[in-house]
């Protein structure tokens, strides 16, 4: 217990000091995607549900948040809030539909629903299709703090990330979280114990989607862009990879996975196709040989020693 507390404190210190050693734009990207991956992990790692369409939350919230900030002129925290609320709404509707199926079917349904949202985004006038929503203003937080400076913006993103991460931590370690884990382990047994499994799954889905939306809405404000890439199926696949690589079912795994993937994409960005190849290869290797992910493996080895 003490070991993990020191670990968290060390990470917090790292986050606080980061903008002075790193490039704030890059760091913000890592944090947004880390949040996205953590939200996704809530569903797959702790409830056992693979959603292949999480980009719909991330991307749609980004569009709404961007639109709110640019066209409606809302302050950044309200813009992010509106994006997150929309994501929650989508989560409710799509979750209700998807939960009717299990396992593989669930994954395919989420994929197809996400694709539908993608095409809606292509057609809807407010998203400007291929152009995306550009030049989203960062505005003034609460009408007071100008977010134009990259470092200031970074700290806001960092606070959002930490708050959401703490929320996920609380959810996992609560009675609700225990029920989710039991559903992941053995759904029929949970059902036989009298739990309304479908309702728990739906709730987990909505929570996961809302937090993913939070990540997307924040990303739109921080980077000033919301595009079709954010709602595409490749984005859904990326978040799966981040979580798989980092370690499904661990708390810090998705964060690490996100950091690795975002860094890799940054370095390979100019070499377009290489990104796909490396990601595909990583997927294959992870599934075949490395299913616990990095953090999962570390925890496993540590556990063995103790």
């Amino acid at each position, binding site marked *: 217990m003490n070991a993990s507390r020191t670990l968290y404190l060390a990470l917090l210190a790292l986050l606080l000091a980061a903008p002075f050693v790193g490039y704030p734009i890059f760091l913000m990207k890592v944090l947004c995607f880390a949040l996205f991956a953590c939200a996704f992990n809530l569903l797959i790692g702790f409830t056992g549900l693979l959603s292949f369409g999480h980009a719909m939350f991330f991307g749609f919230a980004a569009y709404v948040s961007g639109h709110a900030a640019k066209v409606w002129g809302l302050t950044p925290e309200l813009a992010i809030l509106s994006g997150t609320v929309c994501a929650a709404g989508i989560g409710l509707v799509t979750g209700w539909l998807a939960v009717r199926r299990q*396992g593989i079917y669930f994954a395919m349904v989420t994929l*197809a*629903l996400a*694709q539908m949202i993608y*095409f809606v985004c292509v057609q809807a006038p407010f998203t400007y299709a291929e152009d995306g929503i550009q030049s989203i203003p960062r505005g003034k937080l609460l009408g007071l703090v100008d977010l134009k400076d990259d470092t200031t913006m970074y700290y806001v993103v960092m606070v959002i990330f930490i708050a959401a991460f703490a929320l996920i931590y609380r959810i996992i370690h609560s009675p609700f979280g225990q029920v989710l884990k039991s559903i992941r382990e053995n759904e029929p047994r949970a059902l036989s114990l009298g739990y309304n499994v479908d309702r728990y799954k739906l709730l987990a889905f909505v929570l996961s989607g809302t937090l993913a939306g939070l990540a997307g809405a924040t990303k739109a404000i921080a980077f000033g862009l919301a595009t079709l890439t954010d709602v595409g199926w490749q984005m859904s*696949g990326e978040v799966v990879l981040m979580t798989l690589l980092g370690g499904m079912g661990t708390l810090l795994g998705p964060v690490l996975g996100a950091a690795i993937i975002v860094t890799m994409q940054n370095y390979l960005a100019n070499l377009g196709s290489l990104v796909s*190849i490396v990601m595909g290869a990583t997927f294959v290797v992870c599934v*075949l040989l490395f299913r616990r992910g990095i953090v999962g493996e570390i925890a496993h080895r540590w556990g063995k020693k103790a």
Partner: protein
Amino acid sequence: MTEIFGIPTAALFGQLLLGLVNGSFYAILSLGLAVIFGMLNIVNFAHGALYMTGAFFAWMLLNYAGINYWYALILAPAAVGLIGVLIEKTMLRWLHQLDHLYGLLLTFGLALLLEGVFREFYGSSGMPYELPAVFRGAFDVGFMMLPKYRAWVVVVSLFLCLFTWYVIEKTKLGAYLRAGTENPNLVKAFGINVPLMVTLTYAFGVGLAGLAGVMAAPIYQVSPLMGSNIIIVVFAVVVIGGMGSILGSIITGIALGLIEGLTKVFYAEISSTVVFIIMAIVLMVRPAGLFGREK
């Protein structure tokens, strides 16, 4: 110009025909997916990428070796089938005992890999594939020009689908395959080589995809992205039709192609989402799919 519901017949039938062509591709691809899922319980995300690979092989055969379309119809699917054998034997084999989600993840990774490799070498904008001379031109059927090649595609797809359905549902080989998935140990006890059957089934399924790719090459541009564009629609088709049902996938595929074509005439904007809307409706009304059995 004659009109039905205020739409000129030329437009209506033209779009329906194009829809039928698209539907044929949906049918072949969802058929392959259904066969693979039925036998192996794996959702083959790489199906779209292998369809694209088939198209590329046809293109490469023509442009590097001067081998024309007719030979490509046989060689390319065979090559894709071989790749399928490779994939199954080296990778999918290890995932049989695990949660089926891992199969989906693995094939997703393979799809990314394949797409990335082809994009690296050929760019993403697509290469033209020369139509064989006998297919050039169109039949003038009065209300529209029907390109000869597209008519050919429809005919061949129908034939393929019926052939596959017949083999699986009506022949002894098909019976072994179906038994092998239900109870592999029992079937093994009868002396039938179940692992071999599994491998061949996967190879056959992706071979079908490869064949669809060759047929698609002259119509759509041969592009690394052609697989990912179509695979998700095919997934929706399979969910609507019911995962285990072969006949279901064929009928649903064609029907959805036609419906897509119709929406293009009346309300073009939703043509890309109509498949998913139907999927949502089916999920609410009949979660197992229109023809499916709850597994």
